[in-house]
């Protein structure tokens, strides 16, 4: 099987800081991959390079066999690379319905889906349990619901690769359980790449884990292997779970 996404020597400097430093990475279709690592390890920068929000200083990104290194973010989204933000950034002054209508009409315009905007929106809202709040302004939703709305928007893009940046941050424990179910469901049709700090969530969800440290990949493997890796324990797990 060929990887869905690969990077070769991917780097990004901010001034003198090498936030991402020569990363070679491969993601297989259909897997759920978690990226973990201490704060400032370059995780968000790395996925921003994948989604095209920032440009690499050097290296390349290949998606589904095509070099997308120079492709602007909006075109990558049309190819099926969807990104949900770490800091909730739903359109606060628009209704939940309109928030989801934006990605739905995008896929309709591209011809990647068929049907009506309304039915597509309601399907995504129902999947995330927000259907009864369709008419509420997004800014008036609770924080947990805003995060779910963010996921609904990502879903509505019909992504082939869904990148979730700290999706469970700020969620209550009960909401986290629903979220895990939701991600498993999404993963039946899409590849999922998530940055996550919540270790139980990572251990339950991820097929494989990539550990970042100082802009480089420190280790990669199944949850069991990562748990047993002493380097990882020193760099990360040891520090926070000492």
């Amino acid at each position, binding site marked *: 099987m060929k990887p869905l996404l690969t990077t070769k020597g991917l780097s990004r400097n901010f001034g003198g800081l090498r936030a991402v430093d020569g990363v070679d990475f491969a993601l297989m279709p259909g897997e759920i991959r978690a990226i973990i690592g201490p704060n400032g390890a370059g995780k968000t920068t790395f996925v921003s390079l994948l989604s095209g929000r920032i440009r690499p200083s050097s290296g390349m990104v290949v998606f589904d066999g095509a070099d997308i290194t120079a492709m602007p973010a909006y075109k990558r989204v049309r190819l099926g690379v969807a990104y949900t*933000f770490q800091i909730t950034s739903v359109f*606060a002054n628009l209704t939940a319905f309109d928030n989801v209508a934006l*990605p739905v009409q995008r896929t309709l315009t591209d011809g990647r889906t068929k049907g009506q905007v309304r039915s597509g929106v309601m399907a995504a809202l129902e999947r995330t349990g927000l259907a009864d709040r369709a008419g509420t302004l997004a800014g008036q939703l609770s924080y947990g619901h805003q995060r779910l709305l963010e996921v609904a928007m990502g879903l509505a893009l019909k992504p082939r690769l869904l990148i979730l940046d700290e999706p469970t941050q700020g969620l209550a424990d009960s909401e986290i359980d629903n979220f895990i179910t939701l991600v498993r469901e999404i993963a039946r049709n899409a590849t999922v790449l998530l940055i996550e700090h919540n270790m139980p969530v990572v251990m339950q969800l991820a097929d494989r884990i990539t550990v970042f440290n100082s802009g480089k990949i420190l280790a990669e493997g199944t949850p069991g292997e990562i748990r047993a890796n002493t380097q990882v324990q020193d760099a990360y797990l040891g520090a926070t779970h000492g």
Partner: protein
Amino acid sequence: MRDASPAKIYALHIGVIALLFALNFILPDYHQGLFARIMALAVFAMGYNLLFGYGGLLSLGHAMFFSAGLYGAGLTVYHLGWGVPEAFVVGIACGALLALVIGLLALRTSGVAFMIVTMMFAQVFYLLILYFAAWTGGDQGLVIQQASRVVAIGGASFDLTDPTVRYMIALALFSIILLVTLATVRSRFGRVLVAIRENEERTKMLGYDTVANKLAAVVASGAICAASGAAYALLFGYVGSSFASIQYSILPLLWVLLGGAATTLGPLIGTLFMYYVTDITSGFTSAYLLIVGVALILLVLFFPKGVLGSIRERWLGWLP
């Protein structure tokens, strides 16, 4: 657009158009003329509102699009002797083309830089009008004779200097642009524009080419403002450089802010209000701008989102 029932929304807009139609037969001569002018200029405000209210792009150079229509239509009648309908189309085409070029250049910037860049281009346009005084009449402007302002359609001929004809043509243009605006803001394109206004970065990450969408908004806005300018030249028979001055870039902003940015009917209300406050106060005192200023301050204090914007916020959430 909460609880938006399309029937209610369209009924409201058709109702406003019907009311304006009825006013033609009720209003005294003077006010009939004033209303024709207001409706033509409200089209200018609606064009501005599309870009500023919905798209969130604050331009300080829209006088150039208005006067592109004004001169585009006026000069073809004056120098080439073209008919009114052809001149009107030329006026709109000039505005749309200018907007395309200006948009391509100015959209490389955003925020304050966009304001300054559009203002500079408008000043260039204004100075060009003065520079080519041999054709444009410079700061004196040009008067388009009554004889050139007669439209023959089929066997009938309409004299644009006739108050009722003038009123009806202004109303027709106003109604078309009002309904076009309404349809646009309720369309998918309208939703994307609002999204760009709210959070451009996020809109990009939903797969939208935000620059292309903003350019489309600039061109649509420029074309509508040019339609207003072209109609103004043909209906009122005067083409002058004062319409290209900075004042006419700021006026549509004021009208839209007063009536309510991002409301379909706000531009009409804002234009109507400003025109009448100016008209009434200038009858009493030469210091009428002072009173206009006070009225503006009061409005900002009590209706910070403009008349319709505040009404929508407090009572009628369904207003488009």
